[in-house]
């Protein structure tokens, strides 16, 4: 460096001023899930006050909202990864219905080994996820539209095939199939803690959350998810296999939907063609409440876990409080809007404050 040394030093000072030290508190506040963490506490306190004396605070009350949160939470963590990757999946609700019915027809109607039914369901889910993902990356169309199509195709086909095969829309009898005991132990057992029965799906939910969080924050693939969602072109230019990442994420949401279907089919020993309806919207709501950006590139799996927890607390809390359950949807819609506004504000502050 000869004469340019002076300039280099001047530049250094100038840039250094820009990159001011960020306080630990501020860094904590800009985590995507902070809004949902605060929201969880507020919602819990609210129902503790309103419905605390009516059973919300009991062990069995806790078990009941965790159960609701778990089924949604499994979906939500997978949807969070997909949405961070910049895509939507509206077909997951219909995949729950289809996978549940595959198990019920295989194990209930035909009385084949339940393991076979579960295997077929997962293979089906992987195929659907792959098809969804491939169509999205090949056509370049919004995944919203592609998976909206899948939603109707899968739901309609589930109803059609089920009626053709069994003549009904609800199929039971899974509990008489070979292998049911083991399946029940894995997917439908209860853990008794202090007299209350906690569903094993809560453990599946935690497992999904740990795997998703690890993937997102500690693996190469996780970094690619952020990159692909933040700017697919930029990511492609530095060598990220964008199509593969997106297709994998769609397969992830389909598998999560199938896991929920398995948990429910084994618990209820049967399936209904309409099971899973609207779950795609609830999952998106949980993810958005959890601080994930609708446009991709920013978010967290922990946030989705908290979003699902809030969902569960509100849904059951309303019942405990003695309010008509009709009001749940109003509550949910309002919370979604509040969460979006709060998260947007926090993120804006975070980006500005560091300038």
């Amino acid at each position, binding site marked *: 460096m000869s004469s*340019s040394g002076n300039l280099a*030093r001047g530049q250094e000072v100038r840039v250094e001023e820009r990159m001011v030290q960020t306080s630990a508190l501020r860094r904590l506040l800009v985590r995507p899930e902070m809004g949902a963490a605060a929201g969880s506490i507020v919602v819990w306190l609210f129902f503790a006050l309103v419905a605390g004396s009516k059973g919300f605070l009991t062990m069995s009350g806790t078990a009941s909202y965790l159960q609701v949160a778990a089924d949604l939470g499994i979906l939500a963590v997978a949807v969070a990864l997909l949405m961070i990757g910049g895509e939507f999946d509206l077909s997951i609700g219909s995949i729950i219905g289809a996978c549940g019915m595959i198990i019920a027809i295989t194990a209930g109607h035909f009385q084949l080994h339940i393991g076979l039914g579960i295997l077929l369901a997962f293979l089906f889910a992987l195929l659907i996820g792959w098809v969804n993902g491939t169509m999205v990356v090949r056509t370049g169309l919004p995944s919203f539209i592609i998976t909206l199509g899948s939603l109707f195709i899968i739901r309609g086909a589930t109803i059609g095939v089920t009626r053709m095969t069994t003549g009904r829309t609800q199929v039971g009898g899974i509990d008489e199939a070979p292998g049911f005991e083991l399946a029940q132990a894995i997917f439908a057992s209860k853990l008794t803690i202090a007299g209350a029965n906690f569903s094993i799906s809560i453990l599946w939910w935690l497992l999904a959350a740990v795997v998703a969080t690890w993937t997102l924050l500690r693996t190469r693939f996780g970094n690619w998810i952020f990159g692909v969602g933040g700017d697919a072109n930029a990511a*492609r230019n530095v060598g990220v296999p964008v199509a593969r990442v997106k297709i994998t994420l769609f397969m992830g949401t389909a598998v999560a939907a199938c896991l929920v279907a398995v948990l429910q089919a084994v618990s209820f020993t049967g399936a209904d063609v309409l099971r899973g309806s609207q779950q795609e919207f609830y999952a998106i709501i949980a993810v958005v409440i959890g601080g994930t950006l609708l446009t991709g590139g920013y978010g967290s799996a922990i946030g989705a876990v908290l979003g699902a927890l809030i969902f569960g607390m509100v849904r059951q809390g309303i019942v405990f409080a003695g309010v008509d359950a009709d009001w749940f949807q109003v509550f949910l819609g309002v919370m979604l809007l509040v969460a979006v506004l709060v998260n947007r504000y926090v993120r804006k502050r975070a980006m500005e404050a560091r300038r």
Partner: protein
Amino acid sequence: MTTATPLLEVRNVTKYFGSVIALYDISMTLHAGEVMCLLGDNGAGKSTLIKILSGVHQPSQGEYLVNGRPVSFRSPRDALDAGIATVYQDLAMIPLMGLSRNFFLGSEPMVGWGPFRRFDTRRADEVTRAEMAKMGIQVRDPGQPVGTLSGGERQCVAIARAVYFGARVLILDEPTAALGVKEASVVLRYIAQARARNLGVIFITHNVHHAYPIGDRFTLLNRGRSYGTFSKADVTREEVTSMMAGGAELEELGHELAEFARTDAVAARALGKTASELNQEARDLQVGHYAPPDAPAPTRTDRTEAG
């Protein structure tokens, strides 16, 4: 220099987009330790050419050789693996992602074993900090979103990244287009640094004032065709200017030049230009007189003018 095998060479490359001829019969070489400036107006085909070089597009016709061997890149990854790194006009950076995650996107360092094999974020942070420090930028929080950096700082991250990952060829698509004069001069200095490390640099711009001080050779594109490649020894700035813009725009460029000289003598010095040289240029273009704000003008020691 011309006797050595070029780092890159394209021979008679043509590129169609449907019926649009974006490039026609382009031949060009790039050697280690030189800065090749790709000049031309908007739509001349500069971006298309470098997208072929960096594996984004494949040529419709013609040959592409790296170190003398024909190649056919199917993706930017292939080009990267061959040591050809590109800093795109629309920056390959994710604004909402942290600095070190951006730095290593697509080439994450890994640590651990089996299912616990993981993205070594600590190492990523350390390296990012160290590499940025080499460019004179102190990073305190490598998790800081890239979106909070200025345009010039982002260019520096992108260049630092390319150099760190062992690029032998650095392709910069209009890195100075969105920058102020001062920031542009900083980026130009990094280009000089890369050349000093014996990298080959392809620098795309439609600003002759950024190109001329740093370029060793100039390739001029116009509507998808090449006007040829010229060594700096063979052309004056005015010749380059008139070739790329046509005589009608000379006057306007003269005004720009005077503005360049007036507003930023400091930046100009960093490029090894003296006030008197700038004055001479302004006089040549007959657009008035430039008085240096702070005398005396320094002597020329920077190597950027040596090419």
